[in-house]
């Protein structure tokens, strides 16, 4: 049932018949989806369709909770590592694939310490290198001008939008190859949302991005490819403009025209 059009550019990651089980319940049914390198792919679909579940497979977040099981393959290029193979250490994966969550979740520490944390746990960086890396990450996240004078202020003093950009900076500091966004603007006001979307558009030239969103207009604005999921299956994946103007599948069409969901 899934119609996945392989994109022209090379893939960064690809799932092949990926299934996921919460205990006995099957949440993902044999998803085969390619994620093109240094482009943004959006995952859309109604509540409960499995888009966040799929996202969290990419960085093995499901491993934090007992009773979950993967089947199939989730390949990372260029080495063709199967991310969901049991012998692959999730910590290694999370050092290469970062995540930004739905509700901004900065650590209750200073701004500097938030961004530096990912680098600290890898160890071995001198203070000057750390400073440079923190500044670069904050610049990449379009937050540097606002915080350059108060790097040691408590992170929770920032506004919601600023906190989310801080979380993006934190994820960027470790130079991930893929950056996962789980509905990053659903808790933010329109102005903050617009800034984050602008940021994603800039970042996708440098990092492969996968963004889950329940807001179709957002998907249309920021992504190059869009995958529509329904009840744990991949229904259709294609270039974003095609999905929203002339989808191949009637279910997709029903969803993007707002007839359900």
């Amino acid at each position, binding site marked *: 049932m899934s119609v996945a059009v392989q994109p022209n550019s090379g893939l960064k990651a690809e799932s092949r018949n990926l299934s996921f089980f919460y205990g006995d319940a099957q949440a993902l049914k044999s998803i085969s989806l390619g994620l093109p390198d*240094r482009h943004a792919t959006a995952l859309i679909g109604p509540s409960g369709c499995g888009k966040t579940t799929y996202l969290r497979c990419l960085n093995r977040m499901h491993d934090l909770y007992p009773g979950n099981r993967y089947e199939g393959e989730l390949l990372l290029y260029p080495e063709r590592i199967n991310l969901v193979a049991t012998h692959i*250490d999730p*910590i*290694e994966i999370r*050092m*290469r694939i970062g995540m930004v969550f739905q509700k901004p979740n900065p650590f209750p520490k200073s701004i500097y310490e938030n961004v530096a944390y990912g*680098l600290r746990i*890898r*160890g*071995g*960086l001198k203070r000057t290198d750390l400073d440079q890396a923190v500044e*670069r990450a904050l*610049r*990449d996240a*379009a937050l540097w001008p606002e915080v350059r004078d108060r790097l040691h202020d408590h992170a929770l003093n920032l506004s919601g939008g600023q906190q989310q950009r801080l979380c993006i900076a934190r994820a960027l500091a*470790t*130079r*991930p*190859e893929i950056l996962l966004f789980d509905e990053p603007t659903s808790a933010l006001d329109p102005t903050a949302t617009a800034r984050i979307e602008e940021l994603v558009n*800039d970042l996708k*030239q*440098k*990092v492969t991005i996968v963004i889950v969103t329940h807001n179709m207009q957002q998907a249309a604005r920021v992504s190059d490819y869009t995958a529509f999921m329904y009840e744990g299956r991949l229904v259709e994946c294609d270039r974003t403009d095609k999905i929203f103007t002339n989808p191949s599948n009637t279910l997709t069409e029903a969803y993007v025209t707002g007839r359900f969901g």
Partner: protein
Amino acid sequence: MDAETAKPEVLKHAQEFRVPPVLTRKLKEKAVEWLLMMTALASVAVTIGIVGVLSYESFLFFQQVSLIDFLTDREWTPLFSEPHYGILPLVSGTVVTTAVALVVAIPAGSVVAIYLSEYASRALREAVKPALELLSAVPTVVYGYFALLFVTPALQRIWPDLPGFNMLSAGFVIGIMIVPYVSSVSEDAMRAVPLALREGAYALGATRMQTALRVVFPSALSGIAAAYVLGVSRAIGETMVVAIAAGMQPTLTWNPLEPAATMTAYIVQVSLGDLPHGSIGYRTIFATGLTLLLMTFIFNLAGHVLRKRYRQAY
């Protein structure tokens, strides 16, 4: 975006940072996990230690004293030349002081709980609760002092024949001591009763007292029962108040106006003296301790089961 980041650089593999090698990281994590597991198992070791020690020494004790005698003899005089090893006098002491304590703690604790949860204003509650916490923070030896040198003389004004050591004062003070405990567990149980139930009663025109007694109290009954049962367990295990104020003469009596020894006071009495390690007299404290442990265990178990029931009810 300024000039530095304008060109789309390919982000290199994160290995550019010196990530510690996988094996050392995994070993370190495993080592930490094992170390922490050992500390968690320490608590199991404590239980094994307690049960083991009490069982072992009691086993040696019962090789010399028959269980029947232990349970039915009406005298407890292990240090006499003609020793008797009946646990009943000690049990009677424990039961009477506990009963007196409950006569005080259950009504008082319940009334305080109902008052605080259904009647009192927030300001009053904020003032009373710390005071109750204070009541439970006072060391038991201070309560013992209070029982002997304040409560007993006060009671002696009512009953001039009251002996200086008696179970009434001790029981009364123990009761006061566990009121905060009974009331806080009961209050928790009552607060867990949904507002909707209360509002239903008020909407029918019930007064606060009727709502409290006929709706809230019965709904919270298993939690309140848990409070009572756990209070019993606390009273049974209390040592210093009885050691100071009830005397240390094991007597089989059910009259609270007399002195007596509880199981706990007996253990204290022997510990204060000098009994050779391994003698039968030494072993009596372990047999007594085992009886004590069994009694409190039964009540603790009951209280735990009741508490779980009320927590799941909503």
